[in-house]
């Protein structure tokens, strides 16, 4: 499972960075989104991967990480998703504004712009 998850994170992150370096604003936006997916998965994986483990303490089971999954990264991921979503939405607005002002979707506002 570790292998699959790390390959998934790597592929998402690599594609994100490649798209981030592209000249069109929409590609940059998608790159940032993919990158934030990979970062969120990474945070999630940092709490050690486990299957069918409870995050909340159940009566009658010893409260340690052998029996439970770490709830902390889940809380962190939730916060990171919310913040990432909001900033991506904001980026989309700026992207559209630049599209309207410059008349094209190049990140510099034109192929030959400085």
């Amino acid at each position, binding site marked *: 499972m570790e292998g699959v998850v790390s390959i998934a994170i790597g592929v998402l992150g690599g594609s994100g960075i490649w798209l981030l370096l592209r000249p069109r604003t929409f590609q940059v936006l998608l790159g940032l989104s993919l*990158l934030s997916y990979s*970062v969120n998965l990474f945070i999630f994986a940092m709490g050690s991967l486990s299957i069918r483990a409870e995050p909340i303490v159940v009566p009658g089971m010893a409260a340690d990480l052998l029996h439970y999954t770490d709830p902390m990264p889940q809380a962190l991921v939730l916060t990171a998703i919310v913040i990432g979503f909001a900033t991506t939405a904001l980026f989309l607005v*700026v992207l559209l504004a630049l599209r309207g*002002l410059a008349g094209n979707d190049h990140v*510099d506002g034109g192929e030959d712009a400085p």
Partner: protein
Amino acid sequence: MSVVVASGMPHLIAAPILLPLLSAALMLLVSERHRRWQAGLNVLTCLIGLAVSAGLLAWVAARDAPLAFGVYLPSNWPVPFGIVLVLDRLSALMLVLTAVVALSSLLFALARWQRAGVRFHPLFQIQLMGLNGAFLTGDLFNLFVFFEIMLVASYGLLLHGSGRARVQAGLHYIAVNLFASSLLLVGTAMLYGITGTLNLADMAAKLAQIPATDRGLLHAGVALLGVAFLAKAAVWPLNFWLVPAYAAASAPVAALFAVMTKVGFYAVVRIWTLFFPAAGSDHFFFGANAFVLLGLVTLAFGSIGVMASQRLERLVGFSLIVSTGTLFAAVGFGMPALSAGALYYLLGSTLTASAFYLLLELVERARLGGDEAALADNPDEGAPFVIEPAVLVTAPAGDVNLDDAEQPLIGRAIPAAMVFLGLGFVVCALLTAGLPPLSTFVAKLVMLITVLDPSGLGNEDSSPSIGAWSLVTLLIASGLASTIALVRLGVRYFWAPQARPTPRLRIAECMPIVLLLSACAALMVGAGPALRFTQAAADSLHRPALYIEAVLSARPVPAPAARAGLP
């Protein structure tokens, strides 16, 4: 006042975060048509914020090193589990700096810029909340959250006034910062995975128990954090976004942004001094050499940029990069005395950059002749306070032999507005270049003396390293570069032009500049106490055991029942 502060502690520590939040929430309820109320509330909040920050600074300054920490547990949970706000000398200093710069930018914006777009005031307060929170928080994830709050508000403020240049610079700025935030998150997650905690003090205490096999992972996580902070602090090669973004931003926003690059610096200093303190151990100040090297390169890059700038706003942006480079190079040496000089330099250079951003807006407006065009969208608002061009009576030149071309200059009055702009420019130029007698000169002098003579005056065995010599050379060379560039621009802006309409300045817009420059002057006059304070701040930074002890020994307030002795 000290009694009031002492009785309000430790709850007062949360005030710099809660106050802007509350005020921004109230402002959102006020319609944009009643901007006057928003502005009034904003000014009031900034004034209270300044008073609270000054009170906290006085509280911290009055206490001795082991007690000079204020720890506040917002949710009343025991320390490593709940979030924690920590006030120490460095954070109190940054709070006051932020409050002064914020008040000045706001007063400047009231005259004109607040009308350039909607929701300026709430965004302004949210930005302050993010800044103050980043200075006060004691755990890594909240540092990320406050960084994001600060950045989200800054995206809005950068776009304030709109226009293609701002939107385009804003797009780059947002993309770079989002990417840096991803790195910050990855670094945070790695450190959590290794240590199992997010509390900075708890983490620092647990670092010693990390097995040698995990050291590499730890260093990778910290390095990722470092890259994120270096990008936000605009260290070469991660600083290409700064100059266009700050040059495109409206003047009061750029002035406020001058503090923002210092947040990255603050975060690096806070984390590195906590995590990698002990001189002589194997991981002493991990990456310190990289800080020195990157700082020196940034310093050189900034100086070249200053020389190459054709426009004033770009020049100020590069001077911010110069100051960032100086700070990182100085702190990388890991010497408390040098860090003290660097912190003192931080205050002076930030105030200078803010004042310069405000001033150059006025200079630029004077150069383009009047501001009627920009006022056209709001014809009902005139210019209430205008300095009438005071006429200086000059004796008419008699038979002096002069060129015909210069005739019109003779006996012409120098308008007071031009005098203000010129003098302001000279003072800002002196401060930017670090020339005597102003505060940045004192700061540079302190740094030069310390770096050349690390073990104190008169000691035989003190031989500065190559890095120290490079710092000395580059500090002096950057001053020279700034002087040349500023003199060149000053000649072009103030001497060369002749047939130019007299600029009309508003007192409301001159006051903030005077406020910032007099803060610089106060720093110069009070250099002794200020340096003693930054020395104490640097000393406690280099003894992180005190910070760790203060945070970990904080206990939640017991419930009322327990306090009354009941089970």
